[in-house]
């Protein structure tokens, strides 16, 4: 933590708030039967409804309502017995209807909370984030700005793909999060991470952040202790966990600079630059936010019955925090270790590796060791690395079959990370083959023994520990492509020594 940041914390109290949009993993869109799959050739998942053609009528996707209720229940929310959709009116070509169907003053779920754990100097600390609402809406189309290097500024025109328009979105809005102090950035990150895990555990979304299926708007304000709440800014479209943390911190530092210079903070949206970590001014909210919401006349109200809600409550999975406690116990690791692998974004990858057949300790070793180091070096998330749980299972299998040594396995990882292909391709590309020909090994052993007759004598006289030096020499002679344990066994055999 920089001293600059600490000075901000000493002078100001931050208040943060998060609005998170998550695309649901339904088969079809929110209000029509078009495919809700990510991507696809432009304008191939479209129909009269999501193209906003006159006379077309929306019909609600039951699975999307179900997913939203389950999410609401998992976030300890009350589920509205009756609620409506609303039109959010704005004129921008990402929505061909000139309005987005959303929910306004009658969200499906409200007043919940999510407990998140953040690491502190005094060990992990649980912080309760209150949830204001969870509501349903539809995603917008994708714009390609042409003629200006992809930016709005300088673009001559834009091209629109409506495949994404109408994909079910849920928006989860927190209440203002107070009392975070210096932990504000970490709490924001832990909250989004926990929300993501919860969505995945519920199976309502696979939450691929790199595909934009989870997008976060980050509200930040600062005030001096005892003063009124400061004016907030809203940083839009923060799309990775690391960026959430950075956006909060950057905005706190920027606002503190402004306030110290007696400049007022403008109520505005800001853009987050993933590369620099800076935020830049967008538009002022004071004039922009006039959506003239009104109840959507083309859709009838959603009134989930008590029995439906209870039935859905029965389908809730183990809460991620409870599951983590169980895994921590199963793996026999400390809370600190568990927390650090969660923070590294390694938990799900480790679980997936174990599911693929890797021993828990080996799965933890790779993900929290070498791979975390590389991810930090590259400034990216673990799951963005070109190594998958299946790769680890394959490599571990090859180690136990004696085809790879630990050292060679490291080289395979290196190759995978460098994009040299899959495990098999890397092994053949790098010529990684264990020298398993006993004759060759015995030859190398005898060579090493003749070079160090004193060590040979030591081992023969019962000092088995001295064998390490000879094993080391053999490994060096075979360029690490021998199985050290096997060399040791052969060596002792050769000298007629028993352990």
């Amino acid at each position, binding site marked *: 933590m920089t001293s600059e940041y600490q000075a901000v914390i000493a002078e100001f109290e931050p208040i943060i708030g998060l609005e998170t949009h998550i695309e649901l993993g339904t088969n079809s869109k929110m209000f029509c039967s078009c*495919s809700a799959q990510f991507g696809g050739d432009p304008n191939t998942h479209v129909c009269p409804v999501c193209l906003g053609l006159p006379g077309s009528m929306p019909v609600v996707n039951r699975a999307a309502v179900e997913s939203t209720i389950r999410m609401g229940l998992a976030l300890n929310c009350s589920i509205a017995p009756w609620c409506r959709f609303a039109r959010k009116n704005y004129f*921008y070509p990402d929505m061909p209807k000139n309005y987005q169907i959303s929910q306004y003053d009658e969200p499906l779920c409200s007043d919940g909370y999510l407990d998140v754990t953040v690491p502190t100097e005094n060990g992990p600390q649980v912080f309760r984030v209150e949830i204001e609402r969870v509501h349903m809406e539809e995603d917008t189309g994708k714009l390609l700005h042409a003629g200006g290097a992809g930016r*709005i500024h300088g673009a001559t025109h834009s091209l629109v793909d409506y495949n994404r328009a109408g994909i079910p979105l849920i928006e989860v809005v927190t209440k203002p999060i107070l009392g975070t102090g210096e932990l504000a950035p970490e709490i924001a990150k832990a909250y989004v991470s926990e929300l993501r895990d919860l969505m995945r555990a519920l199976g309502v979304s696979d939450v691929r952040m790199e595909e934009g299926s989870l997008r976060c708007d980050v509200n930040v304000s600062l005030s001096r202790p005892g003063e009124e709440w400061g004016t907030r800014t809203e940083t839009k479209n923060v799309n990775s966990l690391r960026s959430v943390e950075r956006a909060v911190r950057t905005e706190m530092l920027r606002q503190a600079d402004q306030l110290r210079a007696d400049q007022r903070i403008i109520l505005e949206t800001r853009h987050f630059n993933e590369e620099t970590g800076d935020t830049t001014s967008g538009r002022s909210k004071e004039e922009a936010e006039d959506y003239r919401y009104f109840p959507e006349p083309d859709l009838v*109200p959603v009134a989930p019955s008590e029995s439906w809600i209870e039935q859905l409550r029965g389908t809730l999975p183990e809460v991620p925090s409870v599951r983590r406690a169980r895994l921590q116990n199963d793996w026999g690791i400390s809370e600190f270790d568990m927390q650090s692998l969660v923070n590294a974004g390694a938990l799900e990858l480790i679980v997936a590796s174990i599911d693929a057949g890797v021993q828990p300790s080996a799965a933890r070793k790779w993900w929290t060791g070498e791979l975390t180091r590389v991810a930090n070096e590259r400034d990216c998330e673990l799951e963005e690395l070109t190594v998958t749980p299946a790769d680890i299972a394959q490599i571990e299998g090859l180690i136990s079959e004696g085809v790879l040594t630990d050292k060679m396995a490291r080289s395979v990882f290196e190759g995978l990370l460098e994009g040299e292909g899959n495990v098999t391709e890397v092994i053949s590309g790098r010529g990684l083959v264990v020298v398993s020909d006993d004759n060759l090994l015995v030859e190398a052993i005898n060579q090493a023994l003749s070079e160090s007759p004193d060590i040979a004598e030591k081992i023969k006289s019962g000092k088995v520990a001295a064998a390490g030096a000879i094993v080391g020499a053999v490994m060096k002679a075979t360029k690490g492509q021998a199985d050290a344990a096997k060399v040791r066994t052969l060596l002792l055999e050769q000298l007629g020594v028993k352990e």
Partner: protein
Amino acid sequence: MGQGGIDAEQVKHLGKLARLELSSEEVEHYTLQLEQILGAITSISVVAADHIPPTSHPIPMENVYREDIAVRGLEIGDFASGAPSFEDDRFRVPRILGEPG
């Protein structure tokens, strides 16, 4: 402000939100029209007493759902010709001035 409850400033504001460039004659014209429409609606409030809740849907119907089954929609050939401009399988729109909501 007329009895309908809308004035020229509000009409200008609505025009701006709708990305419409309105001349002062048009503002005057629409203000008059909207006043009349709103005036007609206002007359309902005379009969709508406090015990009558506002209605958003004329038919008391709830929970109309569709099963979550994906169906192939339109082919590009079905709609591209209806768009003012279409390029690279995408709708071409003019340079965007305001930002999304």
